[in-house]
């Protein structure tokens, strides 16, 4: 009798274990990865692809940007924090997306450089996504040496005073270069190596809100839209100077004080 009881209990336990194992292997209805796809109009940008503007072929040398504060809109209409995972390109809910298109391009164009890894959320709970292009003020002006990767990447950092380059786009043509470094300006502190106590005059961050296809979540980043109304040449490069008219065109395209068109649902 006792033997039978144990046998019975054993089978119950085994069934439970099997059920747990199987449910773990069930088709995943959760969303954990969103990829970014760099484009120029309808051309996907990959290693050594060029695009033409005003009859000049331009090649992307590098295109990188920080995003932070990812949120999703629940089906109940509420915006909820969507925490990031931590890896070499993501820390403290800040992610560095993108890379180099020329040097070591194959390595740089790896999918993981262009994707956001997030905590798993049920697909059906998500109706929209939004995030900030840039690094939050609280994290933007810290000693980069003591920050985890990617916040310690010195090529994406100006100095304590102005903080990180939120976006870095550099282009080459045969005889010319053009670059855009987006970041905060008008930051007051004792010197370049001291952090501002108060927020910068021009934070130059922007919140991007998008519909998202939860079954194939991807965001198209269209450089043609970013460069709208900008003539590319050395003299039109922008380092986020507040009064610079070329910077103002770029800010406007990115939706800083405006609606942006650069980031769109990929379909």
């Amino acid at each position, binding site marked *: 009798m006792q033997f039978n009881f144990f046998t019975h209990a054993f089978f119950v336990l085994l069934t439970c274990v099997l059920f747990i194992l199987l449910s773990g292997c069930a088709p995943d209805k959760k969303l954990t990865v969103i990829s970014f796809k760099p484009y120029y109009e309808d051309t996907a940008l990959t290693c050594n692809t060029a695009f033409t503007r005003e009859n000049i072929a331009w090649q992307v040398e590098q295109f990188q940007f920080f995003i932070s504060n990812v949120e999703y809109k629940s089906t109940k209409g509420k915006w909820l924090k969507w925490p990031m995972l931590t890896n070499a390109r993501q820390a403290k809910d800040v992610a560095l997306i993108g890379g180099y298109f020329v040097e070591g391009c194959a390595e740089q164009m790896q999918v993981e450089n262009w994707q956001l890894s997030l905590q798993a959320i049920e697909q059906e709970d998500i109706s929209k996504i939004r995030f900030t292009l840039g690094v939050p003020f609280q994290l933007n002006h810290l000693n980069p040496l003591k920050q985890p990767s990617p916040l*310690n990447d010195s090529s994406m950092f100006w100095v304590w005073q102005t903080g990180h380059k939120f976006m870095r786009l550099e282009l080459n043509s045969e005889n010319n270069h053009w670059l855009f470094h987006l970041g905060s300006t008008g930051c007051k502190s004792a010197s370049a190596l001291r952090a501002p106590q108060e927020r910068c005059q021009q934070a130059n961050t922007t919140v991007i809100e998008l519909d998202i296809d939860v079954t194939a979540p991807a965001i198209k980043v269209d450089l043609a839209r970013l460069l709208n109304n900008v003539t590319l040449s*050395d003299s039109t490069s922008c380092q986020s100077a507040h009064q610079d008219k070329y910077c103002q065109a770029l800010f406007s395209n990115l939706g800083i004080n405006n609606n942006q068109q650069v980031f769109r649902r990929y379909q």
Partner: protein
Amino acid sequence: MKRLTSTFIIFVGFVVVTILSACGENPQPSAYQWPILKGFPKPQVPADNPMTIEKVTLGKQLFFDVNLSANRQQSCASCHIQEYAFAENQKQSVGSTGEQHRRNSLALVNVAYNKTLTWAHDGLTSIEQQILLPMFGESPIELGITGNEKEIWQRFQTPEYQQLFKQAFPDNDFASKGFSAIKSNEENVIKNFDYIVKALASYVRSLISLNSPFDLYAYHGQDDAISESALRGMDLFFSEKFECHHCHGGFNFTQSTSHEKQLIDRRPFHNTGLYNTKNDKQKLGYPSVDTGLSEISTLPQDDGRFRAPTLRNIEVTAPYMHDGSIATLSDVLDFYAAGGRNVRHGIYAGDGRLNPLKSPFIKGFEMSEQDKQDLLSFLKTLTDETFLSNAKHGIADMRKKSN
């Protein structure tokens, strides 16, 4: 039950004996303490050559020992002199046999943090690999070890070196079989140079300079550590107008920096518009004697691209640039203000300012005399006097060694 207990006791006894024997005859090398602030990232060290004080000590002896060159004319320290931040004060180096090198001796400052080694090589990522060049290179000959390995190895068969080798490599044959066992095995002589390489690399890695007035200002928060002029110069240095920090950024003042927390790969090399020769058959701007990274990559767009060296202790490492072709720091500032160099005469004539492969950050800028003095004041705050005079990095009987 009784049997189980006795098995347990035997097992415990076995464990205790094992632990004790590990603490026995061969003392393990001492753990290495990096001379860096708490929270500062540590350099990355190859897994097969962990840092120990003993290896650094042996490496230091070897670094200053002329017995490492075939003709006993030079040591590593001949071209890497401490008072010049382990660089030297001549345009290009001369090897032990008198052969002229084409490049300026690089300062050995925080090399442990370098992403890549030498002036222009994107594949040389460990000091152990790099050290083979001055040791065994034949074009040009520096130490000239190639072909003289056996004779040179014999020179280190002294009781002093035996002791140092044993302490540095306690797990190797030096310790168990004695130095003579190694000596007698002639086929292994070249292999034995691996010990020399590892010790030299450990010493070079130990040359850390993070104690300048700039560090006091930046990382210790001492607002009065640098002068008003230096503060103005620092703001210019980090400004978008001067663009210096785009290539000389980060705590080591070069973007080509790597450390334990740096997980993203960056290997930047730049063409600074130093040359734009017209007499080259390939129509590329840099003189064929040294085209930088393109020699390694074979890519024409890498013509004239060199690694930005650290600016720490830059005050004492004149002359400047990969070929030592700019004499003073003041001239270097003028060079960048001009956005490159117009070579007016001679075989390298051509306007480097117009070099199509020049970095977009070198556009030139207006620099007042005051700006220039301020920038110079700032650059001088990167001089770490304790590094330049630290007796720990040198050896007392250097004179004796070179006689």
